[in-house]
């Protein structure tokens, strides 16, 4: 117990927490981005994907949400603690000089706080759906598969009506593609999303390479390669996320 306490109280232990939670979050945003790209395919793709996520077995959806929530809370609390401690340790110069520290590395707390604000907004916007009214977008029937001839197979469910009879009806699921399109057709929202994923890019451009250093998995040869890799990762995540609002905005022209 003493050992754990010593580790958590130390600056290096806190950095391990940042690196582990940062890695989980960085992998999450990559997965999230890849999932989103299904927006560009037939509507069935992303709608089915969303349906699956919403109906994961064994309450896994809430397990994933709980893990992500804990991760982000740890990342934020420890990140803020470290930043406050670092600011305290530094009296500052009359003339500030920077030799090579990247923009991303110098703005971690600011890009992080923008991400926090954005994530909060984003959850109310598309998960809780109480920012914008999407209720006029009709639900669609959930299509579970396609026959060899290319005909959709509509998933059905049995529901018990109030008079005690069972009826079979198609499973209805939100038309996620239409919801995304409606959401992003508000120019202000789209621009905010693009700005936020830009900040995510900056955060990742330092973070993804920094993780390796924090966990001690980097040397002078790999450092420069990993810095490039981090930028590649960051730009890919940015391009993937931003492509959707950008395409909606272009469509409006």
């Amino acid at each position, binding site marked *: 117990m003493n050992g754990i306490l010593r*580790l958590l109280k130390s600056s290096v232990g806190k950095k391990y927490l940042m690196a582990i939670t940062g890695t989980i979050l960085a992998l999450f945003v990559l997965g999230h981005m890849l999932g989103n790209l299904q927006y560009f395919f037939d509507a069935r793709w992303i709608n089915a994907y969303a349906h699956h996520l919403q109906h994961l077995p064994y309450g896994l959806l809430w397990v994933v949400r709980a893990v992500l929530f804990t991760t982000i809370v740890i990342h934020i609390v420890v990140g803020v603690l470290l930043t406050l401690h670092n600011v305290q340790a530094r009296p500052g110069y009359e*003339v500030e000089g920077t030799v*090579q520290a990247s923009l991303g590395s110098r703005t971690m707390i600011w890009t992080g706080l923008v991400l926090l604000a954005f994530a909060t907004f984003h959850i109310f916007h598309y998960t809780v759906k109480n920012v914008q009214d999407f209720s006029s977008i009709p639900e669609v029937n959930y299509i579970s598969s396609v026959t060899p001839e290319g005909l959709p197979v509509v998933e059905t469910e049995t529901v018990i009506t109030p008079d005690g009879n069972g009826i079979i009806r198609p499973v209805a699921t939100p038309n996620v593609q239409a919801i995304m399109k409606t959401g992003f057709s508000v120019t202000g929202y789209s621009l905010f999303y693009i700005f936020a994923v830009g900040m995510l890019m900056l955060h990742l451009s330092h973070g993804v390479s920094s993780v390796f*250093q924090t966990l001690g998995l980097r*040397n002078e040869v790999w450092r420069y390669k990993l810095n490039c890799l981090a930028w590649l990762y960051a730009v890919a995540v940015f391009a993937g996320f931003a492509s959707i609002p950008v395409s909606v905005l272009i469509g409006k022209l």
Partner: protein
Amino acid sequence: MSNEGRSYTLRIWRQKNRNTPGKLVDYKVTNISPGSSFLEMLDLLNEDLVAKGEEAIAFDNDCREGICGMCSLTINGIPHGPERRTTVCQLHMRKFEDGAVITIEPFRAKPFPIVKDLVVDRSAFDRIIQAGGFISVRTGGVPDANAIAIPKDVADVAMDAAACIGCGACVAACKNSSAMLFTSAKASQLNRLPQGQAEKDRRVLLMISQLDKEGFGSCTNYGECQAVCPKGITLDHIAKMHRDYAVASFKNVFGKVL
């Protein structure tokens, strides 16, 4: 290159003592030879000041050949000035254009309180070394030089770490005032060698806890420390420290190191 004397405007941090607030004061120097060192230029200014009956500017220095780690000036925001891998005592005025305005500040960090003007108290470093930057061996007869075989590449890396002169430029440059480059070099020079193995886990645990106690910031992997280090100590040593600390903490959680 012309050998005519150059003139500079120096904006120098003056501070009476630890508890009095300081400020930048402007001084003019003229007829400075491009071949003179930065510290010689300050010597000339001090001679002038003393001749005028003013108080000389206090700054640390000793060997003036880049090996003792005493000199500690931040020039235009960069510890040890603009030239890479050079202590300020080895910096020459030919690096500064005639007529330049040069701001000179101490090595700033909360754990390095200012003693006077440009002199800071770096004894926090000594306490980090005392916490674990040593090996406890009984001294006896001189051991045979090759009694312990050490691979050349290992010895080279340990030697690179041992090049640290403990000047504190890494702390002064770090935007978090982190002492990880110094501490990791001091741990690494021992942890990499067979003689350092016995106390490796204790060493990293104790040195990091002392470093935290002194109030240094944490490492955000900016790389500013490596960029200003006059001895070219690299972030490799910090990565090694991060590794060693993880292993030591693991052992300390499940077993007993301390």
